[in-house]
């Protein structure tokens, strides 16, 4: 979800004062000067013939806090879950839904009842058979407040109940039509777990969850690694998989190496076979290294952005919003901060999202002259001694708030935005604070810009980030997902309408208009899409990214060592 604002997602959390960019640059320099890390010819020829057996060592930046992806709902959880859980339905590269644990399904005419016809031959790794009762147990588990699920709030708020018609037929009832339901069901966050295991306490299930997937979790050594072994009985791979039957690998060692440079160096040394969250500064080195292969894929959803608070001045004025967006040279900033490795995202949806339209890609292009004209029109025509624009004696100030888990590179990116918007006359004030404080400021609507992104596999994300349902706070905390404060009956009609039809072309048309409307309102300064970036050592092949959230999928992978 997975993840609005705090930005811990991309690089893990690091203390700013200690790390900044220096270690990475330092190591890179030292490698080239002293020893020439990882140079030379590849010694193992990659073979296209899968080999059964062997252990794959995987290294990622962040450790999940719970292995059960129903609890909470943070990206590291779904990466592990994809290896040991199956989903009810699958999603292909084009975003189309296909069968998996459900062989087929029907949706009632009113869109409120989904009837799933299930496979008969599936067993969880604890021996429990998969059936309609298991589907019910899982959806109820996600919706249960005790589970502390974010999925419940974001993706299945519409869920009411499940009827078990017989062993292989389950009818899921929703409160309102929700065409994105099948899409979110394809996400690993909503993976199906053993109902027997789910009866244990939340904390026990966090540590040793049980699924029906190609691997099973055997041990979790905290702050070190998770160990998974092959499920020898696996025979129900999704249609998107490259083979059927058990996985090739015997074993996966899933390690946590927080420092990006250390992770990359471990890959170069062959100590690990696959790394995730390859740092952008290492992309070029990885490409030039004959021992390494790269997989980079954008994640669907709402790209990384600063969302403008339109409930107060100065961003309550559309002209000022457009002027701000147009005066920020994001392309230039991306070039210098991320070495041109991250593309610009110009619209409210990432290009990997189904129903994304490229038509709004350039709505945010850098046009300082237009920005200046808009500000003149909006009445911010005069400048004070320091060059900032003023109106009625008040300076044109905007505050961006950042929690302490914002990565340093993101801070640098916004410093560049600060420098270019200053030329247009904006005073951009970057306020850094603890995550809790920034959450509080957000709850109080006390900000002009809030950083965030949202990874999900459906265009319905537009409703979550700009919809009326998400403007009001969820409970006592006062936290709202619609950080722009945008409400518009026309927009609401479009995104709600898109939920009432299963017809792909109708949905495409409605989401096109919704993107157009959101884009024309200048609610966000979008910067770059979130991405999954894997580095793969020469000994390993067949690693893929599962399309629903661009999550690593090791079922088809094998090792030659």
């Amino acid at each position: 979800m997975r993840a609005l604002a705090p930005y811990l997602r991309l690089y893990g959390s690091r203390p700013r004062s200690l790390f900044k960019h220096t270690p990475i640059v330092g190591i890179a320099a030292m490698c080239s000067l002293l020893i020439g890390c990882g140079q030379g010819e590849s010694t193992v020829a990659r073979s296209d013939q899968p080999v059964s057996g062997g252990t794959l060592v995987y290294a990622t930046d962040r450790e999940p806090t719970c292995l059960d992806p129903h609890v909470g709902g943070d990206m590291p959880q779904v990466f592990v879950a994809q290896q040991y859980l199956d989903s009810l339905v699958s999603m292909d590269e084009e975003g189309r839904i296909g069968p998996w644990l459900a062989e087929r399904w029907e949706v009632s005419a009113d869109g409120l009842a989904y009837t799933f016809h299930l496979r008969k031959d599936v067993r969880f790794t604890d021996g429990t058979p998969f059936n309609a009762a298991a589907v019910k147990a899982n959806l109820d588990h996600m919706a249960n407040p005790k589970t502390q699920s974010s999925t419940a709030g974001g993706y299945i708020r519409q869920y009411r109940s499940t009827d078990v018609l017989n062993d292989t037929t389950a009818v899921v009832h929703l409160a309102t039509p929700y065409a994105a339901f099948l899409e979110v069901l394809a996400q690993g966050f909503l993976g199906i777990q053993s109902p027997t295991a789910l009866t244990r306490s939340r904390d026990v299930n966090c540590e040793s969850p049980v699924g029906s997937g190609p691997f099973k979790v055997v041990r979790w050594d905290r702050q070190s690694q998770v160990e998974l072994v092959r499920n020898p009985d696996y025979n129900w791979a999704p249609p998107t998989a490259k083979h059927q039957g058990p996985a090739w690998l015997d074993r996966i060692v899933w390690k946590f190496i927080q420092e990006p440079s250390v992770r990359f160096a471990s890959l170069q040394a062959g100590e690990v076979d696959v790394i995730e969250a390859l740092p952008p500064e290492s992309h070029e080195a990885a490409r030039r290294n004959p021992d390494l292969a790269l997989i980079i894929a954008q994640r669907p959803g709402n790209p990384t952005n600063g969302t403008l608070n339109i409930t107060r001045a100065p961003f309550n004025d559309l002209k000022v919003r457009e002027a701000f967006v147009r005066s920020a040279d994001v392309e230039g900033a991306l070039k210098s901060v991320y070495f041109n490795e991250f593309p610009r995202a110009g619209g409210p949806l990432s290009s990997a999202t189904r129903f994304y339209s490229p038509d709004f890609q350039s709505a945010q292009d850098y046009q300082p002259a237009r920005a200046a004209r808009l500000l003149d029109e909006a009445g911010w025509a005069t400048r004070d001694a320091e060059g900032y624009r003023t109106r009625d004696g008040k300076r044109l100030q905007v505050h961006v708030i950042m929690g302490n888990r914002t990565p340093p590179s993101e801070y640098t990116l916004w410093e560049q935005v600060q420098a270019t918007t200053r030329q247009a006359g904006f005073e951009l004030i970057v306020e850094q604070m603890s995550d809790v404080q920034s959450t509080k400021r957000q709850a109080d609507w006390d900000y002009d810009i809030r950083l965030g992104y949202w990874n999900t596999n459906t265009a319905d994300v537009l409703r979550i980030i700009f919809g009326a349902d998400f403007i009001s706070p969820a409970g006592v905390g006062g936290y709202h997902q619609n950080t722009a404060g945008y409400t518009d009956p026309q927009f609401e009609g479009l995104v709600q309408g898109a939920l009432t039809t299963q017809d792909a072309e109708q949905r495409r048309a409605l989401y096109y208009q919704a993107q157009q409307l959101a884009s024309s309102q200048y609610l966000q300064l979008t910067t770059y899409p979130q991405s999954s970036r894997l580095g793969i050592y020469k000994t390993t092949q067949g690693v893929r990214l599962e399309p629903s959230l661009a999550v690593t999928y090791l079922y088809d992978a094998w090792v030659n060592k």
Partner: protein
Amino acid sequence: MTSESLVNELPNPRRERLARLGRRALWRLLGGVLVLWAVATLTFFALRLMPGDPVLAILGGPSGNPTAETIAEATREYGLDKPLAVQYALYLGRLVQGDLGVSYSQHLPVTRVLAEQSWPTLELTLTSLVLAWILVLALTVLTAGRRRWVSSLASLAETLSAALPHFWLGILLLAVFAFGLRLFPPAGSDGWRTLVLPSVALAIPLAGFIAQVTRESLELTLDQPFVLTARTRGLSDTAVRFKHALRHAVLPGISLSGWAIGALISGAVVIEVIFSRKGLGRQLYQAVQAQDLPLTIGISLVVAAGYVLANILVDLLYLWVDPRQQEHAA
């Protein structure tokens, strides 16, 4: 009755000394308990009085998307609906019974997290301390009071190493010995090979500190008349330095070692992150970020207890090294 009063009437010096020591130990212990209580209380209020709702931090901060029901349920589960004073009293009550609670962010009892993560940190800090002392002894005993340039050079090396930040040193060691020469693994916490680079990174700056004070006191000691006496008895220079001078000169270094335990643990936070090691330091860092109250207090208590214990040990070591102190021990 009578025998007791008899004993009281006849002063027994041995018994009295033991009683004095016992009283002293009791006071130290009470002081220690007071320190632990203060740590728990300060941490409790520091975390609880931060602005913002702790339930939101528990449910994933801004990245979470809990429903109103989830928030209400979690608030009830963690007792956050009660007044702060009641929460504090309940927490303290459980603490006295040895119940540290369940970590919000790890979904584990705090005692289990401590059991799993304490040893790697202890291993790291102890190895670093021993390593630091080996460096100190090698450097100071061999160079103090030698020719002027030798000792100034050594002294410069000490000042430099004392000034080295842990993270910089850690990354340098990684680049050269792990990535470059590939002598040691860059990450992990299994086996002695993974322990080498992190302990060296922690030991070098510490050795710099301890060596500075040890050198000064060693140089003073070498000018003492008893050293001259020892030499006139025909002892070799090395024997004089190790057998006689050192015993006097290490005292400031030993008391500094008590402080060093604290410095090592704070250094361990950074080093454990850089070297991807298991341990309390890295865990504490995550716990604070997640506003995980039970875990943060649990780790703080263990660290504080370790610090108190280390200082008591240093005290005893002091007495053992310098018997003169025993006269004033009471």
